[in-house]
């Protein structure tokens, strides 16, 4: 692994990430962020370089001659090995990113398709509709098939779907048993 020592702070723009995560992934994002921040705190609490030892004090108090010198030389010469990524997590993350970026590009293509379809839909609704005072029954039947104004609908041309028509007494009427049938 590279001997690049990462400084103990986050390079991730958490505010930006929090702003752009969708609502259902906010919890996951928060847990990642807390994990990162506990790690940063832990790293900051530990020494960054080889901690200094008070050799002068030991030189005065330790009676054995040359012992302090020997230890000092060894301590300064000792190279602490930087831990290596033995399992290969970095490669795994690289692979994951490659795969996810392919899927991301595909999903972006899908989203642009839907975006364009929605825009053309809005354009049609803005332009290709008759003005309010030029609507006819025929137009209603053709523009909105399957609704109240469709000849195939059994409720065709009955009372409209307004409260004053659907509430009692019309609500409980039985068609074919009105006053006209009793004449």
């Amino acid at each position, binding site marked *: 692994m590279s001997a690049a020592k*990462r400084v*103990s702070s986050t390079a*991730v723009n958490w505010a*930006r*990430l929090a702003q*752009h995560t*969708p609502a259902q992934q906010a919890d996951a*994002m928060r847990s*990642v962020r807390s994990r*990162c921040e506990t*790690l*940063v705190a832990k*790293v900051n609490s*530990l*020494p960054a*370089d*080889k*901690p200094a*030892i008070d050799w002068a004090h030991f030189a005065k108090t*330790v*009676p054995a001659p040359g012992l302090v010198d020997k230890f000092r030389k060894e*301590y300064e010469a000792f190279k602490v*090995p930087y831990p290596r*990524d033995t*399992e290969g*997590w970095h490669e*795994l*993350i690289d692979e*994951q*990113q490659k*795969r996810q*970026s392919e*899927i*991301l590009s*595909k*999903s*972006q293509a899908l*989203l*642009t*398709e*839907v*975006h364009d*379809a*929605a825009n053309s*839909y*809005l354009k*049609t*609704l803005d*332009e290709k*509709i008759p003005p*309010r*005072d*030029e609507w*006819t029954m025929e137009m*209603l039947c*053709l523009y909105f098939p399957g609704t*109240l104004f469709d000849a195939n609908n059994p409720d065709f041309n009955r009372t*409209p*779907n*307004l409260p004053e028509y659907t509430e009692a007494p019309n609500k409980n009427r039985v068609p074919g048993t009105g006053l006209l049938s009793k004449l």
Partner: protein
Amino acid sequence: MASLASRVFLPKQLSLSARLLHTSRAALAIPKGPEREEFIDQGSAKILKSMEAWKEQTKTGLSSVTERFERLHEIYYGKDRDFTNYPPVKMQPHMPKVRLGILPDSWFQAFYNKTGVLGPYILALGVPTFLISKEYWVLDPEGMVLLVSVPALIAFVKKYGQRIKEMEAKKANELDESVIVRPIEAAKDSGRDLVRLTESQLQSFPIVFEEAFKAKREILDLQLEEEYRRRLAEVARTVERRMTYHVELAAAKKSFQQQHLVQWVLDGVTKSITPQQEKEAIQQCIRELRALAPKAA
């Protein structure tokens, strides 16, 4: 005591590298085989499939409406529509102009060129006069109801006409809106919502992707950094402990020697005290006490 000392187990003095190896944690094992595939995938293939299904569904829904509206617009307002001979019939917001509440203004306009402004009024006056005078219109007692019914009707219309007109206009407007205006507006709102949603997702997803992977790599690197710093601290701690041990050892030796010497000196002194010296010392003490006693009293 030698056998007891021989049973004390002292820890083996490890070299620094060996000590570091001894105190390091083992790395978390990466997933292998199908679990590795799952880890790389993170369920994204399924999500992509569902997204494709959503896209298909949305597109068919939107395009069915779009195609229908375009086709019908072409029929009603397209190039084959004859606007000169068949102009579109518009719903008038107000009724045509009327005079005296019931007579259309167009009738008066038709007379205007030939008879001027007063023409229709004179006709309205002259025709009943002619009919009455020639007894075509017999004014019998039953006809007197006109004297009451016509004013009554006029009064009713004058009093309630506006109110009734407003009520009916409101009903008609409500119907018109509920059937034409509101559905179209709802459709437009849903279209705008969809546009906004897709735009925000198009913008956000790459950002989240990039930042999330930065965070992942950062967590790995921070863990390595933490381990490195723990090793540094461990090395320093070990060396200091050895030094402190030597310091403590020397101090312990010195204090033992001091104590032993002091004890030896004291033992010597106490041994060298003869009984004669003791008696003399006691006598001296008693004399001194006697000398002090009168002073205290």
